[in-house]
């Protein structure tokens, strides 16, 4: 059996979160009634002209600086010519051979190692409208609201090797553009869409196999599934003596398979040429400085810092940095002075579970990070146990209020008075002679039984560590 290696490159279309469109003043927001957010320029009316949105340029430059990319001093726009009803001008304004962002690199953690994925280029272009086939039997509806929305198309090198790694890269991109504030990251609304170029080759070979392109993948899961399926398909084709044909394929999540999109046509001739309606873009040092000032601490830097400063394991740093809002929540929690590892655990478990259950975003979390920090501090101080902490958290979530006030009002303060706890421990031991015998005969597990009884007797308010110590002492063979 041949051992195959897959080679994957992604093209990620990032919708830039500008207020207006890339070449017109029309509102770029998602979700209006069809064709209500398209002006004469977006409609490609005769005589109208594109005017470049400077904010889209700054966002692209911010991205370029964040991935340490080469940035040319000038770039320009080209026309990509093809006919389609949702492309009003009959050409898309894009960038062909002078993209605004050149070669760069995105660093990510995958499978316990740091991977550096090459970015070949990133260019600005306008989005097309949408063709709606489903609502109109035998007809096609055209909604041009999306026409002219700014896109940054980020093209990776074929540096990815597995479907999971490709999905991790898409996640890293997703985190990055949200950190940079250049995209809302809303996958359901198509704010990030991905095409995957996939090929396979016998492991150990340097050359690349013929590739196919899977279009329009807009979730991490579909991306992984589609690539996995396509790899299997290509291997099957090759092992049965066939040849992979270069083509564009579409993934159908319902049947979990890809199928050819445009038949076996040769690559379309887009007849690119420089758009004479737009001047070349001069990337001045001032513009670069302005864009650079917008680059915040990036996920990779945060991961490093969380590891070095807080001693967090990689799994924690990856989780906490994937979403800038989560990272901000974590940092605000730690800023109250509580322990970082405990804070990380609480955020990854209780906070995330509660958010998932209620469908809330962490930016809208009912428990403010300062409150969570206070709660964690009480646990660390031994005022309450971790388990009681969960109860306090739920009260904070449902009703709000002050951590200490909740603890006092509900009598949740841990029983740490050694005399009182000692009395309870001795009572429990005295009440269960049979189990005492078993313990003394060497069945250490019975200790758990005693702990449970003591906790029950204290209403969960005892410090389990302290209970353990006292029990061992009381059970020691007389």
């Amino acid at each position, binding site marked *: 059996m041949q051992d195959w290696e897959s080679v994957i490159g992604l093209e990620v279309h990032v919708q830039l979160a500008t207020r207006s469109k890339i070449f017109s003043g029309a509102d770029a927001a998602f979700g209006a009634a069809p064709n209500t957010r398209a002006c004469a320029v977006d409609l490609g*009316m005769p005589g*109208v002209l594109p005017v470049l949105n400077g904010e889209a340029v700054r966002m692209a430059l911010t991205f370029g600086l964040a991935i340490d990319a080469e940035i040319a001093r000038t770039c320009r726009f080209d026309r990509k010519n093809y006919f389609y009803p949702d492309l009003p001008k009959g050409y898309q304004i894009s960038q062909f051979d002078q993209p605004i962002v050149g070669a760069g690199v995105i660093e990510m953690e995958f499978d316990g190692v740091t991977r550096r994925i090459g970015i070949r280029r990133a260019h600005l272009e306008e989005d097309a409208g949408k063709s709606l086939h489903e609502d109109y039997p035998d007809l096609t509806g055209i909604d041009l609201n999306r026409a002219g929305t700014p896109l940054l198309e980020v093209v990776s090198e074929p540096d990815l090797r597995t479907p999971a790694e490709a999905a991790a890269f898409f996640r890293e991109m997703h985190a990055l553009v949200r950190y940079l504030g250049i995209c809302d990251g809303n996958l359901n609304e198509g704010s990030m869409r991905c095409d995957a170029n996939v090929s396979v080759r016998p492991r150990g070979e340097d050359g690349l196999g013929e590739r196919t392109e899977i279009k329009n993948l807009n979730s991490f899961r579909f991306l992984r599934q589609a690539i996995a399926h396509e790899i299997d398909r290509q291997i099957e084709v090759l092992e049965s003596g066939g040849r992979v044909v270069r083509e564009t394929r579409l993934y159908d999540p319902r049947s979990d398979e890809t199928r050819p999109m445009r038949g076996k046509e040769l690559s379309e001739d887009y*007849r690119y040429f420089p758009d004479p*309606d737009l001047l070349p873009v001069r990337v001045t040092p001032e513009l670069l400085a302005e864009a650079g000032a917008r680059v915040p601490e990036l996920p990779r830097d945060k991961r490093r810092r969380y590891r070095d400063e807080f001693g967090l394991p990689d799994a924690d740093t990856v989780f906490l940095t994937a979403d800038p809002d989560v990272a901000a929540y974590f940092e605000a929690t730690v800023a109250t002075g509580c322990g970082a590892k405990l804070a990380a655990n609480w955020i990854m478990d209780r906070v995330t579970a509660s958010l998932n259950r209620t469908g809330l975003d962490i930016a809208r979390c009912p428990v403010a990070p300062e409150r969570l920090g206070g709660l964690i501090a009480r646990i660390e101080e031994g005022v309450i146990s971790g388990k009681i902490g969960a109860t306090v958290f739920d009260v904070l979530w449902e009703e709000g209020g002050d951590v200490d006030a909740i603890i006092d009002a509900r009598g949740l303060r841990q029983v740490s008075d050694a005399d009182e706890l000692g009395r309870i421990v001795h009572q429990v031991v005295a009440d269960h002679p049979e189990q005492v015998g078993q313990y003394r005969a060497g069945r250490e597990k019975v200790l758990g039984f005693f702990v449970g009884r003591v906790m029950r007797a204290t209403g969960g308010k005892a410090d389990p560590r302290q209970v353990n110590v006292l029990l061992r002492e009381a059970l020691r063979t007389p």
Partner: protein
Amino acid sequence: MQPFTSIADLGRGLARGDYSARELTSFHLERIAAADGLNAFIRVTEERALRAAEAADRRIARGEGGALNGIPLAHKDIFCTEGVATTCASRMLADFVPPYDATVVARLAAAGMVCLGKTNMDEFAMGSSNETSWFGPARNPWDRGRAPGGSSGGSAVAVGAGLVPCATGTDTGGSIRQPAAFCGVTGLKPTYGRVSRYGMIAFASSLDQGGAFGRSVEDVETVLGAMEGHDPLDSTSAARGPTRRNGAARTRIGLPAEYWSGLPGDMGDCLLAAAKELEGAGHALVPISLPHTDAAVPAYYVIAGAEASANLSRYDGVRFGFRAEEPKDLDDLYRRSRAAGFGTEVKRRILTGTYTLSVGYYDAYYLKAQRVRRRIQQDFLQAFDEVDAIAAPVAPGPAFELGAVDDPVAMYRQDVFTTPASLAGLPAMSLPCGFVGGLPVGLQLIGPPFEEGRLLALGRQFQQRTDWHLRHPEV
């Protein structure tokens, strides 16, 4: 009220109350109606014109309004006019009513000018004779059997026949200068970027430039002053101050050998006499060479065709414009809408343009044409190291008979003297400078970028010494 009166005199007449703007407008509307056979207009907007004239009269009554307030004009039907059909002389846009004004239209309206209608032209500005118009050609007022030139033929005819005092036009490869020469009027193509292209239906975006026709350099200068200037809606419009006439007592005027040799005898004599007139005014005539002139027409037709092929893709029958009935499918809609909506010459240029941009031909045609374009620009810039302006013929001959030039390439050669300045983006003007066989001849003055002021000064001086621009046909 007299036709062929200068804008300045019309302004004085309005100010004195010799006539109202409404009367002035009615007078010209009547002339338009009477000269219907010239086919200069695609649409006359009488009611709108009268309303605009009345507004101008109210301004006059309040003591407001500038030099152009109440002055009638006509727009080439390539300029979008809000609420008024703008056809580009194409079946494709025969019923297209734009919801916006071109910047040129808005600025001239803001100056108080009264638009009487939309003038005839070659379809999508593609032609040198007006014969590609879906509405039939405008006719030369000096000889109705002859072409008025193109593509801005209707505007040149309207001014030449005294139907309006002035009119707008666009010039991509000679479309203002050549019809101005054929119809015996003054026409200016400004520097590329001087006048906003917003709302001017695109033919070849890197070459298209709006300009004006008038009875005299003075009138053209007045109109230019109101239409020029940076426009935030057109990224290629230049941030320059207003044009100022800047005459010098003694300038050097280059006569490029490539333009002057080989002219037919009577044309040559006529043009040379015009050049001598400038010499007589104290300027020096300097022989120069622009060696890449020959390559201009082929380079122009490659670049203009390539840009046009993309610019005209939007006419697909989907959102506006001509739409084939009962399409079988999407391809059928595209094919039949475009086949029936565009005329032969437009289709020819879309096809050649598409071809020159295609894989395998791009380098040989489009890129090579761009290299030629740079050479031509360099020719001019070098020449302007030695001379202040260039004098040349506008066209190889006077107006030809309608139907006489039926070979497309022969028609393209009509543009041999106008396309070089277009490729170089330079300001150029056509001045009436005599007659050959009873037909007007035009002298072309070409200046360095944004030196319209120099051309206007020379042109004024020429018109102070000659009366060719005052002659007009019997209409």
